[in-house]
């Protein structure tokens, strides 16, 4: 049996795939190691949907390839880059022994067996396979886990290649998800982070109607689960039923991640988005009215083909007014096999980058103002660790890995995974700081 190391890049959906592969390998008797120096087999679970992600994945492959001069006997590429450019990887990187696409990651153990026999492997299975859960080895802290409720995407935004890499939208059966969530709770998970390419569409393909609200209700009934956080909610699919569920269920964290990408109607249409500025404004107002204190995260794309300076400034005004609690901004990445790549009027890189900097500067100011509003207030914090001086953790406003933290002093003994109340007394640049209340 071998020692397996894995490097997983990109989004949380990819992380879940990596965790499933690790469980499959562990089940076959392999040992999972954290240090690539110790690994006989290294898996690089790649990301490949935008330029920067592709570069990061290639760099990771190069970096891990060097371990083949040491203990590593097999180097395997999986994930979106592998799905997208399997032949390329095999041609350009002789160090890679196997490439598994997004429809084949469950074949990992078999691939390792074949590659061990010296056969170079390429497996690109059906990306529209029926998506079901399976055991996982969590790579997140023991008290938090992602819960992937669907695979693929049916939105076909014109800039995005994901449907070609991950297939059509396929929801998992509710009972299958609940079973996994129960097992996670039993293993000590307190926070479930519900993910999919589009969580709000959950159920439509399987049950003929949206079932996210129903699913969240069922998840909230699971003993041991304290927080349920939802990511990737498409604005046009957020309905009154879902808002009511967020509002009335104490276990559902008052945090919504709604990738809107832009606000200008012409650009939204070109992006293939099914919403308008007016409906976005109304949705944000409604969410803030109905769910007081809700933290709204969004992501935007600047420099989409044909985006004029005026339209960009409109987006800046929108950001100023909407005052998002959390904001991720991407410069448009021209991706082959997408309709947007064929549009005339591509924006020069320097312009895209200038727009990126401008909007981030704007958001920094909003972020600090938002943080200052919390001084003197008490926040429930999920403890994550101790940095040598202060404890730190996340409030309802902070999701794992992508958001800031709350730092605090504490007199009593606490440990990672505990929930504590913290009175905020100051703002650090991005983070909040305070004292734990007894």
């Amino acid at each position: 049996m071998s020692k397996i190391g894995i490097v997983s890049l990109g989004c949380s959906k990819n992380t879940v795939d990596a965790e499933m592969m690790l469980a499959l390998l562990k089940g076959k008797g392999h040992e999972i190691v954290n240090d690539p120096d110790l690994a006989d087999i290294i898996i690089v679970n790649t990301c490949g949907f935008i330029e920067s992600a592709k570069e990061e994945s290639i760099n990771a492959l190069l970096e891990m390839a060097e371990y083949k001069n040491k203990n590593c006997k097999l180097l395997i590429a999986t994930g979106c880059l592998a799905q997208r450019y399997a032949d390329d990887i095999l041609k350009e990187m002789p160090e890679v022994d196997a490439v598994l696409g997004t429809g084949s990651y469950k074949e990992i153990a078999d691939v390792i067996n074949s590659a061990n026999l010296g056969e170079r492997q390429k497996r690109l299975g059906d990306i529209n396979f029926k998506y079901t859960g399976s055991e996982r080895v969590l790579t997140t802290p023991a008290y938090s886990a992602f819960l992937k409720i669907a695979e693929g995407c049916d939105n076909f935004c014109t800039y995005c290649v994901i449907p070609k890499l991950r297939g059509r939208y396929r929801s998992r059966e509710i009972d299958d998800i609940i079973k996994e969530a129960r097992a996670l709770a039993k293993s000590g998970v307190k926070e479930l982070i519900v993910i999919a390419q589009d969580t709000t569409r959950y159920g439509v393909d399987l049950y003929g109607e949206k079932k996210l609200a129903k699913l969240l209700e069922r998840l909230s009934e699971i003993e041991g689960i304290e927080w349920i956080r939802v990511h990737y909610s498409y604005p046009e699919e957020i309905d009154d039923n879902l808002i009511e569920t967020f509002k009335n269920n104490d276990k559902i964290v008052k945090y919504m991640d709604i990738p809107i990408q832009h606000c200008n109607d012409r650009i939204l249409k070109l992006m293939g988005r099914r919403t308008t500025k007016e409906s976005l404004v109304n949705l944000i107002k409604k969410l803030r009215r109905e769910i007081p204190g809700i933290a709204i995260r969004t992501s935007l794309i600047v420099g989409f083909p044909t985006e004029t300076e005026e339209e960009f400034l409109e987006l800046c005004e929108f950001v100023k007014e909407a005052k998002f609690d959390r904001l991720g901004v991407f410069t448009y990445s021209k991706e082959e096999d997408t309709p947007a790549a064929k549009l005339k009027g591509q924006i020069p890189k320097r312009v895209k980058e200038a727009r990126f900097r401008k909007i981030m500067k704007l958001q920094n100011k909003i972020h600090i103002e938002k943080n200052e509003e919390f001084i003197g207030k008490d926040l429930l914090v999920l403890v994550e660790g101790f940095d040598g001086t202060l404890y730190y953790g996340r409030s309802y406003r902070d999701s794992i890995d992508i958001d800031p933290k709350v730092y605090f002093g504490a007199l009593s003994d606490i440990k990672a995974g505990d929930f504590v109340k913290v009175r905020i007394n100051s703002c650090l640049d991005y983070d909040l700081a305070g004292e734990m209340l007894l």
Partner: protein
Amino acid sequence: MDIKDYGLKLVLKRKYSKKEFSDKLIKKGYEEDEVKKLVLHFEELGYLDDFDYAKRFVHDSVNLKKRGTRRIILELKAKGIPDEIIDGALSGEKICEPDTIKELILKQNVDLRDLKIREKVIRKLMYKGFRRLDIENVIKTLMEGGIL
């Protein structure tokens, strides 16, 4: 075989970094202590010299294999060469990555106005250890200059 004889056999065949040499002997079954002693001895005799090894490696990688600095650094690190020696070896070599990138692109003889082809060329060069930004800049210059 006596460790010294085996070691000599190795260094006469090709250049080794100290780490590569040690790993090879340990894998062969020699004791770690005797390997360490031999490495020191061979170093004194000049049979093992990480700086010289790194210099030659950089020279060949840049001029023959046409590799980017990023990949060269990773490869040298994997061979156990310390960072300061890698830096020294790199600074001693005349490296002009844009020229190498240009040479490799022109050798492809493809239409880079086609996004699919351009991305393929960019990936090919990234696998060689060049940075995306540098590759894009060269492509831009070539296109603006009417060379492509």
